[in-house]
């Protein structure tokens, strides 16, 4: 009985044996204990090798041409910004309700006026943000292919500035809240 060569066993083990070649090697293995042992040893090693898996590669966008990535980043910043504004507005509403409940007196008129001003301010803030995002988006579409890196930097700046504006608004609200309590 001629045993299959190691080359033939490799072809079989890595699934590249076809047709007659595969049939004859398999036939041999069915009859030959010695070759079965050998194949089993190879299979064990192959199984062990497969234990070393690598994490999926991290997305490193170094290619300026990836304009869709820039667009996605803008979208993300815009969404996050929008959500924060929404939260802020909700806080204002709650505050207003609270004040209305507790005050109910003469100071309520002034408070209402202040609230209206705040709301207007926020509306303006949001418009500014919207404009900033729209501008950034436009710019990105035009220049993404050339300088994605610069764009990202700009976006980060926009995000930081927006963050700062939100914070100052929040502080104002806090002040307003304490002021209204004092009034009571």
């Amino acid at each position: 009985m001629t045993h299959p060569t190691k080359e033939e066993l490799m072809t079989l083990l890595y699934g590249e044996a076809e047709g007659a070649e595969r049939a004859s090697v398999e036939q041999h293995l069915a009859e030959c204990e010695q070759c079965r042992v050998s194949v089993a040893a190879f299979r064990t090693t192959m199984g062990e090798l497969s234990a070393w898996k690598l994490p999926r590669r991290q997305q490193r966008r170094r290619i300026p041409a990836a304009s869709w990535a820039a667009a996605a980043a803008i979208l993300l910043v815009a969404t996050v910004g929008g959500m924060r504004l929404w939260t802020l507005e909700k806080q204002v509403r709650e505050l207003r309700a609270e004040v209305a409940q507790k005050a109910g007196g003469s100071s309520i008129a002034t408070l209402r006026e202040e609230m209206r001003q705040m709301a207007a301010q926020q509306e303006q803030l949001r418009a500014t943000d919207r404009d900033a995002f729209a501008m950034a988006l436009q710019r990105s579409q035009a220049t993404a292919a050339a300088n994605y890196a610069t764009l990202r930097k700009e976006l980060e700046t926009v995000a930081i500035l927006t963050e700062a504006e939100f914070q100052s608004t929040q502080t104002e609200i806090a002040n307003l809240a304490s002021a209204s309590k004092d009034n009571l």
Partner: protein
Amino acid sequence: MNLLGLFSISDEQAMWRVQMNDDGDAFALLMERWEGPIQNLCTRMLGDRHRGEDLSQEAFTRVFARRKDYVASGKFSTFLWRIALNLCYDELRKRERRNEISLAEETDDGNAAVVDHSTPDVAAAHRETAELVRLALMKLPELYRSVLVLKHYEGLKFREIAEVLGIPEGTVKSRTAEALAQMGRLLGRENDEATGARPAQSKKEVLAL
């Protein structure tokens, strides 16, 4: 040229555009398709994830620099694998000269195996095996390591490996067999006579270097 419009083109067509027009989108597409496999190749050749990522970047830089050398009749991936492998060989040469030991214990951020087993014990055992495999692979002569990495991990056909390495297909197969046999020994298992038995080494010896 819209990036989306590029997604259906072959590697060879993309490379041709890079060659002819320095087409940045086409090159980005090639990187998108091949950065992962090339990173993995370099990582496994060097046993070092971070260095592997660096070398992968270098490989693409070199592909771009040598874009005129690419022969349009050949497969792009063959061209790329070859460039990446040569960079790995260079790196290993440098290490040898510095007499650097590349088997440093891995920290958890880099080469740690990806496992999602339900129990910590199983996961730990799996990680240990993965680490032993990495160390054993680093002890395997490069001649066998490259064949094994291309075949076992990257899943190239024997014929493709023969093209990348410029050796006959039969040689690729016999080297794969020898590589597996040596790995079996390095991993400390008793091997049968068919794969060329030698006294089995203990797992500790592999770590001892």
